[in-house]
């Protein structure tokens, strides 16, 4: 299976994502933001980081990069796209998934392990996943997901919520919400469920010696689903 990770100026999880994808069997290529064409890929990943320093609005400048035309076209033709953290912010700015990401409720960067509950398994990303609750890792300053009530209704009606922040038993409540996201939303799909944006970093959970191994479960399952 072929994947491509796009490096924007200021991306800093591009290498980590490359290592994770390669570890679980993807043939991965790194793609420069200023390129016009995407290599042939089964999966495109927009990695985490601080593209353009997050100076204007997180993700906004990167969403206008040259390569994004191809990424948007790829999405339209049903190609699989995953945006992690800053990649999620870029997807939002590019209009590929609904909503916006605001500054964290307590106005602080947060780096820690969190639990997320998978809401929708009828898609390539989470299909056949054994576990309902995964332990992932977050590291962000602007992960506070927000959308209008109308949008939220559409999102829910379409079953577009991918994952929620929850406790280790899968309960979602305000206390467990790390950043103030509406409805504890940690990740969301586009209408067609071929584009996933999420704040947590599965690529940081791929080794027993790191923060944990639920990232490994996610990537292995993803590869099998694409095969």
């Amino acid at each position, binding site marked *: 299976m072929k994947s491509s990770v796009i490096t924007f*100026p200021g991306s*800093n999880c591009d290498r980590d994502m490359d290592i994770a994808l390669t570890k679980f069997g993807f043939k991965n290529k790194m793609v420069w933001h200023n390129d016009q064409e995407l290599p042939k890929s089964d999966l495109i990943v927009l990695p985490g980081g*601080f593209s353009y320093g997050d*100076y204007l609005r997180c993700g906004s400048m990167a969403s206008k990069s040259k390569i994004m035309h191809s990424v948007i076209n790829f999405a339209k033709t049903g190609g699989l796209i995953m945006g992690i953290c800053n990649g999620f912010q870029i997807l939002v700015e590019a209009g590929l998934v609904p909503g916006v990401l605001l500054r964290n409720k307590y106005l602080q960067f947060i*780096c820690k392990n969190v639990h997320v509950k998978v809401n929708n398994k009828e898609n390539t990303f989470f299909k056949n996943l054994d576990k309902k609750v995964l332990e992932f890792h977050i590291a962000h300053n602007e992960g506070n997901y927000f959308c209008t009530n109308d949008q939220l209704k559409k999102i829910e009606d379409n079953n577009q919520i991918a994952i929620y922040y929850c406790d280790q038993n899968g309960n979602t409540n305000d206390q467990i919400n790390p950043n103030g996201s509406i409805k504890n939303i940690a990740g969301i799909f586009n209408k067609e469920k071929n584009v996933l944006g999420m704040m947590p970093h599965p690529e*940081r959970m791929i080794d027993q*010696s*790191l*923060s944990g191994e639920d990232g490994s479960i996610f990537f292995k399952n993803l590869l099998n689903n694409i095969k």
Partner: protein
Amino acid sequence: MLVNEKIAIEHGLKSDEYEKICKLLKRTPNITELGIFSAMWNEHCSYKSSRIHLKKLHTKGKKVIQGPGENAGVIDIEDGDAIVFKIESHNHPSFIEPYQGAATGVGGIMRDVFTMGARPIANLNSIHFGSTQHKKTKNLLRGVVHGIGGYGNCIGVPTIAGQTSFDRSYNGNILVNAMTLGLVKKDKIFYSRAAGLNKPVIYVGSKTGRDGIHGASMASASFDDKIEEKKPTVQVGDPFTEKLLLEACLELMSGDSIIAIQDMGAAGLTSSSIEMASKGNLGIEINLNKVPCRETKMTPYEIMLSESQERMLIVLESGKEEIAKKIFDKWNLDFAVIGKTTNTKNIELFFDNKQVANIPVNTLVENSPMYDRKWKKSKLPKKNKIDKTTFKSLKIKDTLKKILSSPNVCSKEWIWQQYDHTVMGDTIQKPGGDSGVVRVHKTDKAIAATVDSSATYCWAHPLTGGKQVVCETWRNLISVGAKPLAVTNCLNFGSPEKEENMGEFVECVQGISEACKYLDYPVVSGNVSFYNETKDIGIKPTPTIGGVGLIKDYKKMITMDFKEIDNVVLVIGKTEGHIDQSLLSRIILNENNGPPPEVNLFNEKNNGLTLLNLIEKNFIKSAHDVSLGGIITAISKMCIKGDKGIKIKKPKFLINEIEYFFAEDQGRYLIEINPKDFKEVSKILDKNSVHYDDIGKIIDKEMIIDQKTKLTIDELKSYNTNWLKSYMV
């Protein structure tokens, strides 16, 4: 503008220094030249008060590839790999403007490391604030933490460990020391020594603005009531540009275009160009009209003294300009050929086709002032006689609660959760342990790093304190299973013009040197920060030591959390009951006098190396060094981390129970072993003459000190974790 003595003094020079400049030049300098001299001759750049003493530091060792004198130190970690590391202070700017001060401190130290060709792999920091009651403390802490995070998180280098303390003596002068480690191949290290004639001198990175002009001079003076006016001398950081600069420099470094490279840190273009010329015994010629400027009408004086961040100066091989330019264009960074190397041994500056400065390089470097300042030796204070009946009135539980929740012991999670400590995917020990540990990418090796200081001990007796800080970092490394290799030091003191302060400096340096020599743990880099005082009130002497160690097989790394019920816990090292200068003495008994605990270097080395041996043999399940708050505080932390309890067995000690639990004797650790290994472990300890006490065994969820004194793990946790969070609300 005509230069005279008055103007020189306004630049922070002394009368006799100005006289010396005129004599060396055989004429009166012009204003640009005076600016250059003031920047090069201030304390921050010239080390004029400290140089004579720094020579005494122990800097040699088998693993040292590069000692002090370069952008950073370099040590060998085998297999062709090397670690580049250094610590640096950014105290003065952080007090004036905490966010930018701290942020640019992090940016500056990372540049020092990647200038040498190394990719930064970990950041650490040591930050010190005034009393928690002081009106500025909370905002300064918040600003500094945001600044450190803002810069490090954006660049994408994990912040893996640190230290935070509070003490009244920092009320008017906080300390922000930042440390970076980088990984490089031994044969791809870059240095700042220029070589060859007529080689192009290249400017890359951000444009030059008026920010930070005279920053280094500001950092070399004490504060008074007008500090707010100094805000314009604080630089503004741009981590995004630094990230681009990092990637562009590493890309250029993978080829063979660079002869020498130097980042523009303190005193910007001035010190970077002069240092490269001086090390290469060459001259340098710069056309200032070619320097990319952010603002219009900048004068030569301003261009030379600007401390705008994220800039580098490179001496390139002739003919490689196009290759280099292409890389910097790709990363959208300024690139300009601004001059060349010459054989004049002078620094010559041109602006609008006129020569605006012409100074022999050696007058700025070798001939810079060096002072053997007067200093006062300190006496070892007399031991306090503590009335033993005082101990009887103390309840262990209440005392422990106070200590665990005290600002200098409590959990610093509120701080380190704001730092990205997992990016780069190699962090295998996060903040909150004895050392941070990152794997050496794609190998079985790991690097442990820690940063520490003990201002109270240094204040009570600088010589002992200096030794103690080194040993503390040594123990932190041993506790995670790392072989300590080398250190970097950041020496934060008050005014060197005061005999007491100078004495503290001299004796701390002596202590550091003795310990480093004995432990074969050399100093490879560092910096000195004097004049940490406001209105004549200086800080406690605060030498900060950053220690670096190697774990050959990362799977053998040790953590402090208790692992398994029924395992046995041993105290390694002898507990004599030293209470003076301990937390117990200071915050419970309200006694601030007395000597710090004695440091026995033989025991430190012997205990440490014996533990490494036990770790190598897989006997140790968890370990933690005993420091502030003594044995019981250390045990509590192991319980909290492991979510397990302990049934404490009263060892057969002759001293009072309170003394045993809270004393801060040095050279001690706690280790957890499997009961089946007890015999073998005790045999090894006995054979190496290492003292140990069997202090009990691990149980579930409760710390039982005696029948009447029990604490649940949740209680311990809440004492330890709540204070900082509620303070910062």
